Structures are given as structure tokens and as C-alpha cells.
């Protein structure tokens, strides 16, 4: 337990002493994770809507696959992407292995199925409620999809936050494709892994508390945005 209180005080010191290295690491963590979530959302929401709406042979299999892919082991994804991006691999010529770009790619792969699977469920449920009314009002498929995405926006924000949580918490994928390079691809989670391996448990736990704080902060901001949205646009 003394480790715990020591860790808390380490966390405080880190945050309020203006430790430049810490804020670089926090900045990299956020930029990698937010970029990955943005890409996954940009591609995943329309994919989820498409899957909710359209009926085609193999649809049910695809739904099961995406649901299962929500639990993809990060370390496996990291390994596969490493093999893809390695100089000896098919995409080696881009040279993005051991850079933040590779980390964004890996995390986007992890978050994408979450966005697709969960948004599909949200939109499908909403469509069950709305379909008769929207068809009666003359909304064609394209307009209806837009209406569903907009009307489901609060549930969909939660879907995006679930994706964010997954990316912010993982270390297995980014440590392989990023290399945990000091000052370049070291993020909160990979730094925690490193300090743990050096036996500096108080620092590792302290960093952990800082990470938790950041994640809570992001979620609080999202909640605030939702409240403002609800008040302005009318829920």
C-alpha cells in the first residue's frame, strides 16, 4: 500500500512540476489515440450504417465477425501490422515502422471493429423504431441514414468513447509497431510498461494515475459537449 500512496504523490509531482518529458509523452499518446479514433470513426460509422441497413448474403456472418473483432488481442494485431510494415514486408517501402504513423494504423485497426459493431447495433435499433415513420415522410435510403446517424448522435458518441477507451488503454500493439523509442514513440502505456520492467513501480503507477486522469478528462469533456449539444439543438 505504501507503493500506492507513493505512486499518488509521484503522479501529483509529475503533473504539477511541468515535467516536459511527461507532457511530450501525454501529447503523443493523445495525438496517436485521437487520430486512430478519428480514422476508425470516419470509416466505421458509414460501415456500421451500411451493415445496419442493407440486406445481402453473408450479412449475418459479417456481423458476427465484427462483433468478435471487438476483442482482437492487441498484441496479435501489433504483430500482424509489424509484419506488414516491416522492410521485408509488403508495405515496407512506406517506411513508417517504428514511427507514430504505424501506431495510429495499429490502433485504428483495433478501434474500427468496435465502431462498426456498436454503431450497427445503435442504428439498427433506431431504424426499427423509425423506419415506418421515415418512409411515410418520404425519406429515401440516403436521407434516412443521415437522419439515423444524427438522431443517434448521443449513443454514437458513447460508441466513439468506447473506441477511445480501447485505444488509450492498449499497449500490446503500439509497443511492437512503435518500438517504444525514447522521445519519439514512447506513449503513456509504453512508458508504464518500461518503468515497470525497470522495477520503478512507483513511477509506473504514478504514470498510470496520470493516464487515468487524462482518460477521465476526455470523457468529461465529451459529456460536457453532449450536454451543450442537448441544450442547443434540442434532444
Amino acid at each position, binding site marked *: 500500500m505504501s507503493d500506492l500512496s507513493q505512486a499518488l504523490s509521484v503522479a501529483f509531482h509529475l503533473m504539477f512540476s511541468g515535467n516536459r518529458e511527461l507532457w511530450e509523452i501525454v501529447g503523443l499518446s493523445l495525438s496517436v489515440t485521437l487520430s486512430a479514433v478519428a480514422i476508425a470513426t470516419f470509416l466505421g460509422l458509414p460501415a456500421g450504417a451500411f451493415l445496419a441497413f442493407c440486406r445481402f448474403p453473408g450479412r449475418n456472418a459479417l456481423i458476427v465477425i465484427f462483433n468478435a473483432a471487438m476483442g482482437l488481442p492487441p498484441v496479435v494485431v501489433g504483430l500482424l501490422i509489424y509484419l506488414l510494415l516491416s522492410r521485408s514486408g509488403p508495405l515496407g517501402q512506406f517506411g513508417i515502422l517504428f514511427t507514430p504513423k504505424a501506431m495510429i494504423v495499429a490502433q485504428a485497426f483495433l478501434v474500427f471493429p468496435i465502431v462498426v459493431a456498436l454503431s450497427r447495433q445503435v442504428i439498427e435499433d433506431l431504424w426499427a423504431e423509425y423506419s*415506418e415513420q421515415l*418512409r411515410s415522410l*418520404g425519406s429515401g435510403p440516403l436521407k434516412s441514414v443521415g*437522419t439515423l446517424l444524427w438522431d443517434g448522435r448521443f449513443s454514437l458518441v458513447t460508441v466513439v468513447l468506447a473506441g477511445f477507451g480501447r485505444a488509450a488503454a492498449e499497449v500490446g500493439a503500439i509497443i511492437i509497431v512503435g518500438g517504444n523509442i525514447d522521445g519519439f514513440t514512447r506513449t503513456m502505456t509504453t512508458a508504464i510498461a518500461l518503468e515497470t520492467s525497470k522495477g520503478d513501480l512507483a513511477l509506473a503507477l504514478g504514470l498510470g494515475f496520470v493516464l487515468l486522469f487524462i482518460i477521465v478528462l476526455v470523457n468529461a469533456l465529451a459529456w460536457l459537449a453532449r450536454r451543450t449539444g*442537448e441544450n442547443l439543438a*434540442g*434532444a
Partner: protein
Amino acid sequence: MRAPMTSLPLVLRDTGFSAGGVEILHDLSLAIAAGPPTIVLGPNGAGKSVLLRLCHGLLSPAAGEIRAGGNSPSTERTALVFQRPVMLRRTALANVAYAIGRKGARERAAALLERVGLSHLARRPARKLSGGEQQRVALARAWARDPEILFLDEPTASLDPAATRAVEDIVAEIASQGVKIVMATHDLGQARRLAGDIVFLHKGRILEHTPAEDFFAAPKTPQAAAFLRGDLLT
């Protein structure tokens, strides 16, 4: 100025509909002409909702045919107010404007909300309105579609008397604008207040189609008579 009518008369010929292996409507033949409101009466489970949805174009008949003024039933030229309206997650005004896909939508929506007496709630989130207010928004929204026929599926079944009266007044006003009203209800008082002619539906068959006074004064079939007495529950 109303555009030339293309949805009336509404003619059903030997129309049938099934769902889940169960035949819900059998051999319906019916002609609804322009004029005062047509009320579809019948106990629960008679098939009133399905009939309205067929005529609106939301469902396709399994047998026979439906012609609206010689064309297929279309959601473009007709509108339907459901028993429980689905309000979109936006303001009352935005809900009505949604139904108008053109320039000037907001102005027209505001005018319609005024006609249904809800101007003061225009900026309120539609989902936060009372049942009666939501139904009036739904009416304004359906009205905004500029329909030739307005179908209503038991619109006041879940409302209190005051809200019911407000809805009926709006329906009457829409009717006075030249829109054909076809409304399903099991509320006899409502039918008496609004009907021009009655279509009596029982167990998926049309048993009577008569002018309102004749129906209420002297129903032709025993089932209709029982229904008017309050003895026909299904």
C-alpha cells in the same frame, strides 16, 4: 390552389394481406371518393391499421390490387399520422421542417405550427412534449407534406379528452382545406363527430360502407349493431 387530384378515388379490388402466415385482410373491395372524412370503424384486431398502411403505400397487398386515382398508392401524395408518432431528436419546428424538403421549409413549418396552436413550443425538443402536443406536431408534419389524402391511425387513442378535442379540431380544419381524411378509430363519439361515411371492418372483412347517419341510425349487419351497442369487442 390545390393541384389536380391524382390519388382519388381510392379503389381496392379483392385486396388481401397476410403476415406470418396469418391472413389479416380478406377479399377487400372498397371505393373511397373525395368529400367529407371517411371513418374506418371496427374492434381491435379488425385490420384497420393494416388497411391504412396499404392505402398509404407502406405495405404491398398479397392479393388483389389497390389504385389511388389510377396510380399505385404513394407516400409522396398521401400522409399518415400514426397512433404513436415518432418524434425526431430535434425541435418541434425542425420536425415539421424535416417533412418539407425545399427552400422556405422553416417558414412554412412555423406557419403550420401556428395553425396547430404550438408556436410557443416551436424551439422545444419535440421528445419532451406531451403526448397530445407530439400528436399535433405529427399532424403539422403530415400537413406539411401537402397530401391529397391524410390517413390517421387511431390518433387519439392514447390521449386525454382535451388533447383529443384539439386533434379533432385540427383534423376538421385540414378537411376543410380540401384534403380527404381517412381515419381509423374505435371511438364511436369521435366517429359521430367527424364522419361523412363509415367503413365498418370486422375480422379483416368490410361488412358495411354507408353514409354516417344511416350507419348510426340503422346498421345493416348484426356485427355493426353489436359494435354500436358496445358488445363487439374483437
